[in-house]
């Protein structure tokens, strides 16, 4: 039987970079094929070639055994290829049904849209694939997981038998991820072929049949999932054997550097998001906050960093009392560093250049400013050095931050924050959407900072990250701290129970 998709020796060059070099990918009918690699390994480029968005400089594409030329997405769609993009491509002000039928409208004989029939069709499609949606809802009102469902239905509606999923789980919560993976298995049962791009090994191992590994634009491994191990795939990705354990010495905590006392916070709907939260972070230690997302972690960060000032309670940085009205800049001057949980909206200004991003928040740094004046050439020297030190890959300091891949941008933000020499660093989801190599690098940097005697508050929804990095872990549930554990002497299961609100552990 012919392959559903066979890409032979695909080469794609961009000015100055070879994104894909002689890449061959074979996807069987009715299988889930994992495509894995670090950020910038060329996964998305390869898929854009398959979807007709990029034209390859060399190689050929066969769909169901027949060679095809794909000029644009329309061609790809007509060869029953569909792509669910990492960043959703939906029109917010249109309804679910309107979004789904956009590419192939359902009309009455008069040429007028038949919205009733469209709604019914969308409902039927949703039922058939176990993805129920409300066809009349406006997309902008839907939560992310639901929007993704619309994306998948849109692709199925256009008649896709080959689905490309570009990092579909990056935006989902753990429960939603499970739901999505089940959907993928159902689609496979119905005979669809799925190409799943991801860099989460666990998901990859649980649903795929075959795996192709890319590194630096070339294929470094093709394996059957049943014969592979996480370790082996990871080593193909980064090119060396790696261990997931972060090596670190025992913490030598010093005096208190961050003290929070009786923090209360209500959101604008009057819901209590923080309920009597008190804790301290000492110099030279990493305090991890574990918890299922939405249990007050985000609000805690907002309160500490000064993003919101409508809280009650006391915050002390070192020996400096922080007033409630102190805005983020003031708190930064008092020694706070902050790696925000969303690098695209809070961590960086995507349209501004890398250099501008580097000096943001540091406009009184005497290294490159004199009162009232900024020396961009001096700033460039500093930024270059720091970015090099943090292994940030970029073409020039003048390019917009948005041009960087996710992992690189995160490294740039970490580089900036650490350059400011903070006494306290809030690291929120520091490895979200970042590949293994960059994650390990960021972890190493955090530990280095800890060993230099700084206090670090780590907030992450990845339990493994919290457990391996932190010296102490507190668990948040429903806006309150429900317990503290020593990560060395407790299991993930124990922590999991506490995160679910069932008391346990030892405070």
């Amino acid at each position, binding site marked *: 039987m012919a392959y559903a998709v066979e890409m032979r020796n695909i080469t794609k060059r961009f000015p100055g970079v070879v994104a894909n070099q002689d890449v061959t990918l074979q996807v069987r009918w009715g299988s889930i094929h994992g495509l894995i690699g670090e950020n910038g390994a060329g996964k998305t480029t390869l898929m854009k070639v398959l*979807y007709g968005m990029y034209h390859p400089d060399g190689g050929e594409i066969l769909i169901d055994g027949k060679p095809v030329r794909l000029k644009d997405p329309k061609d790809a769609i007509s060869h029953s290829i569909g792509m669910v*993009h990492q960043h959703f491509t939906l*029109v917010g002000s249109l309804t679910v049904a309107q979004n789904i039928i*956009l*590419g192939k409208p359902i009309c009455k004989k008069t040429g*007028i849209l038949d919205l009733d029939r469209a709604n019914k069709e969308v409902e039927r499609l949703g039922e058939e694939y176990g993805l129920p949606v409300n066809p009349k809802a406006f997309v902008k009102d839907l939560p992310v997981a639901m929007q993704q469902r619309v994306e998948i239905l849109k692709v199925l509606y256009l008649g896709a038998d080959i689905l490309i999923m570009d990092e579909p789980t990056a935006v989902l919560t753990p429960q939603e991820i499970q739901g999505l993976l089940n959907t993928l298995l159902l689609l496979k049962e119905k005979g669809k072929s799925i190409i799943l791009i991801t860099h989460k090994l666990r998901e990859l191992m649980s649903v795929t049949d075959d795996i192709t590994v890319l590194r630096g634009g070339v294929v470094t491994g093709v394996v059957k999932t049943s014969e592979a191990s996480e370790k082996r795939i990871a080593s193909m990705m980064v090119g060396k054997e790696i261990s997931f354990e972060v090596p670190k010495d025992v913490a030598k905590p010093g005096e208190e550097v961050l003290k929070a006392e009786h923090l209360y916070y209500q959101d604008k709907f009057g819901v209590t998001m923080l309920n009597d939260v008190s804790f301290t972070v000492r110099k030279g230690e990493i305090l991890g906050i574990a918890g299922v997302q939405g249990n007050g972690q985000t609000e805690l960060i907002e309160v500490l960093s000064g993003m919101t000032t409508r809280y009650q309670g006391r915050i002390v940085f070192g020996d400096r009392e922080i007033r409630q009205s102190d805005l983020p800049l003031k708190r930064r001057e008092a020694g706070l560093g902050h790696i925000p949980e969303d690098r695209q909206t809070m961590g960086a200004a995507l349209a501004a250049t890398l250099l501008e991003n580097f000096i943001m928040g540091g406009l009184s740094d005497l290294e490159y400013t004199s009162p009232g004046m900024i020396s961009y050439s001096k700033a460039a020297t500093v930024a270059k050095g720091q970015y090099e030190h943090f292994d940030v890959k970029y073409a020039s300091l003048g390019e917009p931050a948005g041009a960087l891949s996710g992992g690189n941008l995160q490294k740039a933000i970490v580089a900036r924050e650490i350059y400011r020499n903070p006494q306290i660093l809030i690291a929120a989801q520091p490895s979200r959407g970042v590949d293994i190599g960059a994650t390990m690098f960021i972890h190493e940097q955090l530990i280095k900072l800890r060993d230099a005697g700084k206090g670090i508050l780590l907030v992450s929804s990845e339990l493994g990250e919290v457990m391996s990095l932190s010296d102490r872990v507190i668990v948040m549930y429903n806006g309150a701290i429900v317990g503290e554990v020593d990560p060395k002497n407790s299991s993930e299961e124990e922590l999991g129970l506490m995160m679910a609100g069932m008391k346990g552990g030892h405070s």
Partner: protein
Amino acid sequence: MLDLGILGVTMRMATPILLAGTGTLYNDRAGVTNITLEGSMLLGGFFAVACSFFTGSWVLAALAGIATGIIVSLVFYFLTSICGGDELVVGFSMNVLLDGLSIFLLKQIFHQSGSLVDERIVGVPQISSEVLGGIPIIGDLFNGQTWIVYFTFAFALLTWVILYRTPFGLKVLACGESPQAAATVGVKVLRIRFICNLIGGALCGLAGVQISLGFLSLFTQGMTVGRGFIALGSVVFSKGNPLRLIAVTMFFGFAEAMSNRVQLMQLPSELVLMLPYLAVVILTFVRFDRLKKIKGMKDQEAC
């Protein structure tokens, strides 16, 4: 002063604004910022008058106006989408240029400065019927109008159907709000925008015809007196909804009709002529939804 006759004037005055507004609405919803309405109307009006002068046919004159609008929109498309010019800069300079061009041509062709009035200029005929005139209100609104008035209101209503009930409209909305989304399902974004741009140009040209040949059968330099910008403001205020656009432009039409009436009284005419523009300022620049948001932000800061 407030007899029902003002309704007819309101319709007449609202027509060019609604027509240009409807055209621009396609651009607006498809994601094209084309602000050449004013220049397009002015030059369209000029060529309509010129054509009427030479041929004596108001049909050919109307077609000349529409063709002028289309050509202006093609130039705009060429400069922005092919040469890569900034839409606002191109639009703004084209407005200035077209204003000057109409004066230049007036001088070169007709050896007139300021305005062109001549018996040979045939206006667009008005459609009167005794039956229609006999119906209260409806008669006041529609009797004795040019066919452009009927067309304008019919087309504005049709635009609602086109935007919200046809595949083309769906694609327009998608192109405007999320071109990426449209492109990924195979919609040709540039082609949709090109078509919208043409519609916009044609309607602006026709709006110019209504101003020059629908009101008085003459051409005066700068005779659109900012109606293009009022139309632009109306589109913004109506948030791109054709039905709301009809209501908004009727309001401006009414303001213009009122200023005509008030002029007859012993009030300073400059002050009175300001009325419609004042209405624009109040309606389009004071955005109540934004005010609410600003107030909300202030409240938050205060806490």
